[in-house]
């Protein structure tokens, strides 16, 4: 409950009645929630529930058609300046990594800092190398993404997002495309990041991670937040039938 009390003080993300349609299909049916600076939120729910779409609206990869989203005091509108401002503060990690295949791992990380933050090449490389050190793959800096494993690629992708010094990190099912033995190396990095105080929104099916790291778990179904609670309450004492069903199904395997 602590997170919800804080929500009144200083939310870094505020969403009010956010709606989204894909043509006639109503994906988000009025999401109202907010996230604190430093909060670690896990978003779960069945596929098609709108959870990925929701976090993608937060950096305008998807446009919301009704409601307001305010990130660090800036409202997301059609204004390109606002969008660019917000994208610089929000880092994103994708299910399919989406590394740039024609650039080395190091160049993947330095591109944003050089072109957007206007660092010099050597400054950007210094930042990139220390980030690669942090995600434990400094030795892969000069290889291309296709030459390293999926788990390593995802760690490069995390480093790429961090290089922009974001205030918020969004993770869109970061481990769903990984082989089982690589999931833990990515989760380790995310755990370390969580402990460093980063504001994190994580869409994931890794319930162990949610229980261990999250301040709050949000359960999405059919475009709505059905239930949100700290992980202990969420997993041990779910209130809604749909949540109970989801938890029992997820924990079975």
């Amino acid at each position, binding site marked *: 409950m602590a997170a919800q009390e804080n929500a009144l003080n200083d939310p870094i993300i505020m969403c009010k009645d956010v709606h989204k349609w894909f043509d006639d299909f109503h994906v988000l049916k009025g999401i109202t929630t907010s996230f604190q600076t430093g909060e670690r939120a896990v978003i779960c729910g069945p596929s098609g529930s709108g959870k990925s779409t929701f976090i993608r609206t937060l*950096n*305008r*990869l998807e446009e919301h058609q009704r409601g307001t989203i305010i990130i660090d005091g800036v409202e997301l509108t059609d204004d*390109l300046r606002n969008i*660019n401002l917000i*994208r*610089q503060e*929000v*880092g*994103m990690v*994708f299910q*399919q990594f*989406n*590394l*740039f*295949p*024609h650039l080395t791992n190091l160049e993947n990380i330095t*591109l*944003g800092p050089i*072109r*957007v933050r206007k660092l010099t090449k050597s400054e950007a490389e210094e930042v990139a190398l220390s980030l690669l050190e942090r995600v434990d793959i400094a030795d892969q800096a000069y290889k*291309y*993404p*296709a*030459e390293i494993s999926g788990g390593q690629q995802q760690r490069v*992708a995390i480093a*790429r*997002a961090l290089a*922009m010094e974001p205030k918020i990190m969004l993770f869109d099912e970061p481990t769903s495309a990984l082989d089982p033995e690589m999931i833990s190396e990515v989760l380790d990095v995310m755990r370390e990041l969580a402990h460093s105080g980063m504001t994190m929104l994580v869409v994931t099916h890794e319930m162990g991670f949610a229980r261990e790291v999250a301040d709050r778990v949000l359960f999405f179904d059919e475009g709505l937040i059905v239930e949100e609670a700290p992980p202990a309450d969420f997993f041990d004492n779910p209130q809604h039938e749909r949540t109970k069903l989801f938890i029992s199904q997820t924990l079975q395997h």
Partner: protein
Amino acid sequence: MEEQELTQEIKPPANTKGAARWLKDNLFNTWYNTLLTCLALVLLFFAFKGFLTWAFTEAEWDVIPANFRLFMVGSYPQEQIWRVWNAIYILSVLMGLSAGLWGGLVRRFAVVLSGVWSISALLPVELSTRGWCLGANAMIAVSFFLGRGRTGLRPWILGGWILSFPVIMVVLRGFGENGVLTSNWGGLLLTLILAVIGIVVSFPLGVFLALCRQSNLPAIRWVSTTYIETVRGVPLITILFMGNTLIPIFMPGFDINQVLRMMIGITFFSGAYMAENVRGGLQGIPRGQHEAAQAVGLNYVQTTLFIVLPQALRSVIPAIVGQFIALFKDTSLVSIIGLIDLLGVAKSVIANPDWLGLQAEVYLFAAAIYFAFCYAMSYASQDIETDLGVGKH
């Protein structure tokens, strides 16, 4: 110890590689393939024997050296030929510097070029020509050593290449009455000018059109699509005829000479095809690449320049170079309009009563020149693909 045995490297079984094995597997693996191989060898022997006998005993190759100047520069006046050599010298210096700076492919081309000049100098040519050839060679060599290792010069040299196109045009044309009218440009010189300008301008034009066709703005998309489909629906020769007659009508008062009109026609025609080649590459870029670029904060121009185009162009290099090669050969159509390019010279030499009946020799020579340039482009494209690691990362 056991672990070592597990990972012990085992050599491949003998007799799975090598030329003898390949011959046996591919040419002599069954009795009927053996028969076909022998038959093919016999046919090849007779065909080549016939050709070689003709080439060395019957063909009258005199026609080539006697008309060599025509083949190279058409009716470009003899007393102004220094202009052509000056253009060559500008290119030689850039070539040498680039060879020194980048090495690799450019260096190999520079070596071939300087080989051509060396051989030309050894042939029984006029003393002045010999001097010019050796001079070009010296230019390449000196600038090669000047350029070596000075990586800081690279952006300047790239700028130099871009600047060299207008400069060379001015050098070749000169000014007013004292210069050389473009109607006197001809032969290989004209072919190369049309092809190089066509390639250099139609490539960015094609990229631009392809990006427009992918635009979110309907008006831009519509204009680009209309342009591409219209141009692609018309034969090049029609565009050249139209360019020849319509451009003066649309732009009265401007003196747009015939060579320029052909350049415009070829460039616009090729640009439409180029656009479709590039679009093929653009469509192959997964949506995730755009999203990742946006998430990092890159704007549209940055995303296009640093993420989309490098990947899109890389994947369509074969198609683009195919279009370059097609364009190079299509320049020969200007001889129908009345310009005397390499093929035009070939036709006029054959029509000359002094050289009647020498079609085979003349066309073979022209074909060899076309082939040399087209193969160079094809070779370069393969080399660039390897360099960029296409298919690897």
